[in-house]
Structures are given as structure tokens and as C-alpha cells.
């Protein structure tokens, strides 16, 4: 591991923000810390940045302990949700500030600033003040400022949350492109699972100050470990074993013997619908979402969500038969702490 966090603990009075959290980032890896607000993800990022102090545990970079290094000596780059460009400095001065502190020659700074403006596709704005730029532009400049000093780690604190949907998608690709081409190990905090799926090599899903599951985006989406992860990573149908036995008895075979209450997690796109007069279920509502249709299906065990691509002959009120491939179901642990709101 390039950057390692071991047993990081942080408390604020009675509140435990982080409880013995351990994570790692490989060289060149893009890692997302994903979780609902208050899960401790931003606290963890601030601890790594040196903006807050650990109450326990340690953080090492290439084996060297960072605990005694203040933020300014860690050589990390950070981008905040609120842009945080220095309002009294021009764009060029903002980007060059870290180099100026390091005593880089003026000419070299100018060259580096020009190169970075090119990289973030804003070569025209060098002499503008931050206030004259749009939110998306400001965030690109903030990104350029953070990477100007060739940071050892790039930290992104919800960098896209303050932007509109379209700008967000653009900048998301931009960040991915810049990160890949420069190979900077990057840790991004986000509460948006789509963003995490699109960007990350590895997602670390957190809740209530602990890591719930870490793995590739595919792992977390298709093989969630707990109900919380399943609900947070997108829409899913979570069925109790007795419900499964009513509709899809074949799936019970894959049920693990592990302790604790298990639920079958079936993603909406993994349920096949066939119109059938004697089908067990009935289509109650259809939402057209462009590339797909989301159907609300009334079944003997309650409402299920199904998504279909392409043309679909189903109409509202039609009776349908349901089927699920045996390997398309994941059994997850029912952690009681899962927020209901996540299933939207």
C-alpha cells in the first residue's frame, strides 16, 4: 500500500466520528469514500490531509508515519466542495501559489500555470479573478491549483456536489482523465453512488464511522455485503427468505449458512418479465426514463421494482410472470442500521 490508514479513531465529545477505520490506497489508484452525510467520510479525509488530528491509530505514507507532519508539510493536494479559490488572487496566482511557496522561479511557475490551464481546458482565464468564473470553471482551477505542486496524494472533498447536473458530469470525466494521465493516487469523498461507480477503482463504503464494505465498483453493486450497501448502491429488491420461497424458490439454494438475518438482493434489471395471463404479478405503474423503463409490479409478496431496456410490450394492469437467473441474486446481511431513505 502507498497510503495506509490503520485503526483511525476520532471523537468529538460524546460523538464517535470514526471508529478504528483502516483503509489503503495503492499507487495511482482512484479511491472513493462513499456514504451518507455524517458517516465519517469527510472526517477521514481531513485526518489524512492533516486538517484534523487523530485520537487514535496512525496514517503512513510509503511506510513513514504522517502523524507529526502538519498539513502544510504533507505535500498533498486538496479540492473542496466550496471551490475555495483565494478571492484576492487571479487564477494564475491561485494556481502558482503552492509553487511560489516552494520558491520556484517565476518563469517556471508561469510555464507550469499555462500547462495546467491547458490541462483543465481553460487557457483563457489566467488573469481573471475567481469571482468572474462560473462554479464549474472555479472547480477546474481549484483542481489545477491542487495538482500544480505534483502532490503525493490528491484529496477531493465532494468536489462536484455544488455544481449543476450537466457541469457535474463534464467535470467528473475531466477529473478521471486528469487523474489517469498523471497517475496521482486520489481519494475522493462523495455521497453520490453514481459518481463513485463512474470514477473509482475502489469504493470504500462507510456508515456510522466504520467501513461497511470496500471493493471494486462491480463488487459493491453486484455483491453488496449488507443491506446498507445494497440500498446505498442503487435500487434493489430486498426479500426475506420466506418471500423468496414464494416467488423464486430456486434462489434459496444459494443462501449462505452464515449467522444473522439474510436478505436476497435482486437488482431491478435482473428480474425478467414475461406477459402471461396466469402470471403471478401485475404491472401497476410504468415510468419512462428514456433509455429504460422502471416498472412497479404487484406480486403476492408485495411491490417489486423492475427495469427493462429497449422495447417492452408490457402495459399498466397487465399480468406478468417473473423470473430471476440463479446467479443474479446476492444474499446480504440485514444490518438494522440501514437508512430507509436510501431505497428511493
Amino acid at each position, binding site marked *: 500500500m502507498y497510503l495506509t490508514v490503520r485503526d483511525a479513531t476520532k471523537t468529538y465529545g460524546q460523538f464517535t466520528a470514526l471508529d478504528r477505520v483502516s483503509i489503503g490506497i495503492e499507487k495511482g489508484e482512484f479511491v472513493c469514500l462513499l456514504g451518507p452525510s455524517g458517516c465519517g467520510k469527510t472526517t477521514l479525509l481531513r485526518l489524512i490531509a492533516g486538517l484534523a488530528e487523530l485520537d487514535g491509530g496512525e496514517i503512513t505514507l510509503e511506510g513513514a508515519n504522517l502523524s507529526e507532519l502538519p498539513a502544510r508539510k504533507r505535500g498533498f493536494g486538496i479540492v473542496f466542495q466550496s471551490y*475555495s479559490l483565494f478571492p484576492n488572487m487571479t487564477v494564475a496566482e491561485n494556481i502558482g501559489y503552492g509553487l511560489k*511557496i516552494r520558491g520556484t522561479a517565476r518563469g517556471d511557475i508561469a510555464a507550469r500555470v499555462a500547462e495546467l490551464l491547458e490541462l483543465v481546458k481553460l487557457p483563457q482565464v489566467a488573469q481573471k*479573478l475567481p469571482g468572474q468564473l462560473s462554479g464549474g470553471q472555479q472547480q477546474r482551477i481549484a483542481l489545477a491549483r491542487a495538482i500544480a505542486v505534483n502532490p503525493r496524494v490528491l484529496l477531493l472533498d465532494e468536489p462536484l456536489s455544488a455544481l449543476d447536473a450537466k457541469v457535474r458530469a463534464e467535470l467528473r470525466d475531466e477529473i478521471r482523465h486528469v487523474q489517469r494521465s498523471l497517475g496521482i493516487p486520489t481519494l475522493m469523498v462523495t455521497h453520490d453512488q453514481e459518481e463513485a461507480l463512474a470514477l473509482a477503482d475502489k469504493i470504500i463504503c462507510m456508515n456510522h464511522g466504520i467501513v461497511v464494505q470496500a471493493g471494486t465498483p462491480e463488487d459493491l453493486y453486484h455483491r453488496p455485503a449488507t443491506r446498507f450497501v445494497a440500498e446505498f448502491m442503487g435500487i434493489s429488491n430486498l426479500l426475506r427468505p420466506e418471500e423468496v420461497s414464494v416467488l423464486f424458490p430456486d434462489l434459496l439454494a444459494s443462501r449462505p449458512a452464515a449467522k444473522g438475518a439474510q436478505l436476497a438482493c435482486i437488482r431491478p434489471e435482473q428480474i425478467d418479465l414475461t406477459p402471461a395471463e396466469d402470471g403471478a404479478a401485475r404491472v401497476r405503474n410504468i415510468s419512462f426514463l428514456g433509455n429504460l423503463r422502471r416498472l412497479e409490479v404487484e406480486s403476492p409478496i408485495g411491490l417489486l421494482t423492475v427495469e427493462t431496456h429497449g422495447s417492452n410490450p408490457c402495459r399498466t394492469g397487465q399480468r406478468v410472470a417473473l423470473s430471476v437467473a440463479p446467479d443474479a441474486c446476492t444474499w446480504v446481511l440485514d444490518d438494522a442500521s440501514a437508512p430507509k431513505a436510501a431505497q428511493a
Partner: protein
Amino acid sequence: MSLQEGTPARSRRAPFDADRLLTLACVGLPLLGLVLFFAYPMLIVFLRSITVGDSYGLGNYVEVLGSSGFWRATRHSLVMGGATTLLSVLLGFIIAQGLYRCAFPGKWLIRGIIVLPLLAPSLVQALGLIFLLGRNGVISRAIGVEIDIYGFWGLLIANTLYALPQAVMIIGAALVLLDARTYEAADVMGASPWRQFRDLTIPSARFGILNAGFVCFTITITDFGNAAVIGGDYSVLATEIYSQVVGQRNFNMGAVVGIMLLLPTVLSYAIERQAMKRQQANQMTGQVPYRPDFAPLRDLGMAALSLLICACIVAVIGIVVYASFVTLWPYNMSLSPKHYDITLAGGYSSLWMTIVISLAAAAGGTIGVFLLGLGLRRLPQALAQPIQALAAMPAAVPGMVLGLAYILTFNSTATPLYLLYGTAALIGIVNFYHYHTQAFLTVMTGFRQLPPALEEAAGSLGAGLGRTARDIVAPFIAPMLVSVFFFLFMRSMVTLSAVVFLTTPELSVAAVTIMRLDDAGLTSQAAAFSTCVMAVVCLAILSMKAILALMQRGNRSKGMA
């Protein structure tokens, strides 16, 4: 081994980190100043109030509380404070309502006139009233009636004019906060303008009004200048302290009266702070400012009322300037500059000295509160909060009491602080600590607007505290620093109450000179000297506006390049 496990991570950090030392210095120096020049003198004044002979006791209090003079002064102070508060809050509300909730042209003129009383030592209102309504006053002579302006009524008018700018500013700030959409909603629901005023405006402005009331009350009962010039036989607590200390050289009794004066001001200040917090809690983000439409009946009436009040202010201040040029008031009304040749010992030296002292107090004070604000941001809450509370305390202490505390502390050979006694430095220091709260709170407002992420971004780019302060923080709150500098300069130029005890025959300041000239019967020269002070302060205001405008333009043109 087990010990090491239990040790939190922060203790492992190097104890002599340069940034930590700098933070300590930033907080430590201003804190030392607050302790030496505010807390310690206040302790001394308290100790002196309970000093009887060589031991401690309540004898002085018994004596003061038993004297009819003290009770008369207390009653006068409270009655005067209450009456002035009612009058200035009422008039202030009218003007604020006119400025922010009505539509009529020429508001800039009202805004300009309303601050005039702040540009002069408080005794100028009293001087102006004497020139207007005194035995030889313009109005008295015109209508041929002899008015006795010395006493309650004269003091009431003078104090009201002096407190009015504060009332307008505080109530105005509350009215500005009211959201236009609230009124649009009320319109749609069918509420009449009167109902809107009664049900929306008054309730939302109530904390502002309450706040203004307490500020006006405090200003009035602590003011010395007006009471000294026009109070006549109407003794108040502030003049009582002065006569105990300067007249009868009875320092311990003065200390007792000072402590008694401290009680209502501390109480009033505490309530005012609470009201301020409640009002700030009401503040919404992203509000739409109210833009009044022209309503002839309301607006013409309000404009007339506002202008009438402004006319009174202009008359009182203007007559002082006019009288300073009159050859021999009231017998030879031809104009001449002869009163500008000050005949009192020292002439204009005290004016120059005041300017130097004010510049020093402003510069040192601005740096002091900036460092304090900078350091407090980096201190844990548990440590920062008590320091903040201490820094906000001086506003509760009347100038007379602070001045008395200084003379008791620094005129005693018990400590090396004695070396400061009789120096211009001490006058600069008392001025700064007298107005410490307002300066500190202004800077803290600036700091609150500074997003923590800016400093964190600078920090992770490698900037230390010193560099962040210079490159990021100072430019960000520069407009606040400029305001604080000029605020301290202007208050130092005109303040009388605290410095009146600290001047010596060799070292005087402008406001004290004006009082001496008036005492000596050289009223026209007092007017001339006042006019000079007002000119300096006006110049300072214009400079401040120019600098703030330049800073804004500088920022904009930088972006255009």
C-alpha cells in the same frame, strides 16, 4: 507500553511547531494587553472602592449610599437615560423607517446628516444648543424669550442628538433584514399596509429596537461631555465621579460611584448582547431586499419628518461652525477668523497631539485585534471562548470608570506601570481599550465571513500561519481592517470621558481643550477648536471612503487585466 497506547496522537506532534508558537504569540500579546490595561485596572478600581484607610471595608459604600447627592445624581442619570432612550429610539425609528421602508429622493443627504453628531466630541451638541437656545442664543433673542437651557431639557436634547445616530443604525440594520417576499406574501393574502407594519415590521424589528434602546441608554448615562457643558445643576453620575475625583481629590469615593455606574451599564450591555444574538438568529440567507414603491401619503409625511429631525441636527452642529467665525457673539455678528487664534496655553498643540495619539491607537489597535482574531481561530473552543468574552467586555465599562481605573492604576508607584503615567502612550492605550469591543467584534465579523477552507487550502499548499495571514487572511478582511482603523482613529479624536482624567497641564487632548476653553468662558474659541476637530474627522471619513472605493476598484481592474 500501556502508557504509550493511552497517549493521544496529538501529544506526539513536535511541541515547538513554528505555527503553534506564532498562534500563541498572536493570542498572547493582545491577551496580555487586555489583562494589563483592562482587567487589572478594573480590579484596582474595585479594590479602591472598598479601601477604607489602610484596610478593606464597605465604609465608602455606606457613605456614598447615605449621601443625598449620590441619590440625586443616580435618579437624574436614570431619568435622563430613560427619557433620552425613549426619544432617540422613537426618532431613530422614524428615520430608519423612512430610509429603508419608504420611497423618497435625497436619502443620501439624511444618511450623511445623521452621522454628524458622531464626528464631534459629545460636548459639541451642548455648545450648539447654547448658541441656539442659551441666554444669548439665536433663537432666544429672535423670539425675545429667555430660555433656561442649562439643566434637564438642554441635556435631554443634546443627549438625544448624540444617541440618535446609533439608534438609526441599529434599527436600520434590523429593518434591512426584512425579506421582500414576506411582504409580497402578505399583499397577496390581503393585508393592508398598516397591518403589515403592525404584524410584520414591528415584530421582526423588535430585537433591533430593544437593542437600540439599551445602546442609547448606555451612551446617555455614561456620557460626560454634554452633561459637563449643559447639565448645569442637573448632576448625573458621570459628573459626580468627575467632581469627586477632580474637584475633591476623593479617589476612593469616585471609585464607589464608578462601580455604581458600572452596574446599570453592565446589565444593559448584557441584555443588548442577548438581543443582538436573537436578531442574528432571525437572519435568513438569500433574502430578497425590500424595494418600497412610492406611496404619497406615507412617503411625503415620512420625508418631512426625517428632514425636520435632520434640520435640528444641522442647526445644532452648524451653529457651532458659524459661531466660531462670528467676531463677538452676539453683539458683533460680522465674520472673522480671530477665534481660531487659540489663546489658551498650548494653543493647537493638543490638536496635533490628539492626531498623533489617534493614529497610533488606530494602527496599534487594528494590528492587535487582527492578531487576536487570527490566533483565536486556531485555538480550541474551550480556550477561545473565555478570551472572546474578555475581549468583548470593555464596551460595558463607561469611559469615566475606565479613565478613573487608569489614574488609580498608573498613578501609583507600586508597579513599573507608573512609567506610563502622564505619557501620550497611555492616552492612546486607554482609547484603544475603551473602544476595544467594537473594533474586536468588527474584525471577528470579517473573520467569520472567511471560509475555513481558504486557510486549509493554503495550508495544504504548504503555507504556514504567517504566510497565510499575509497572503490570504489580511487581503480578505482588509476592508474590515480599514474600517476598524478609522473607527479607532475617529473615536480617539473625539472621546472625552476616559481621557479627561489622564491629561496633565503639559499633555492635553482636543476634547479636553474644548472643555477647558468653554470653562474659561472662551465659548467662541471652543467652537473654533471643535470645528477643527470636526474637519479632521470629516477628512478621516472621506479618506476611509476613498480607500474602500479604491480597494474595490483595484480588485475589479485586476480582474479586467
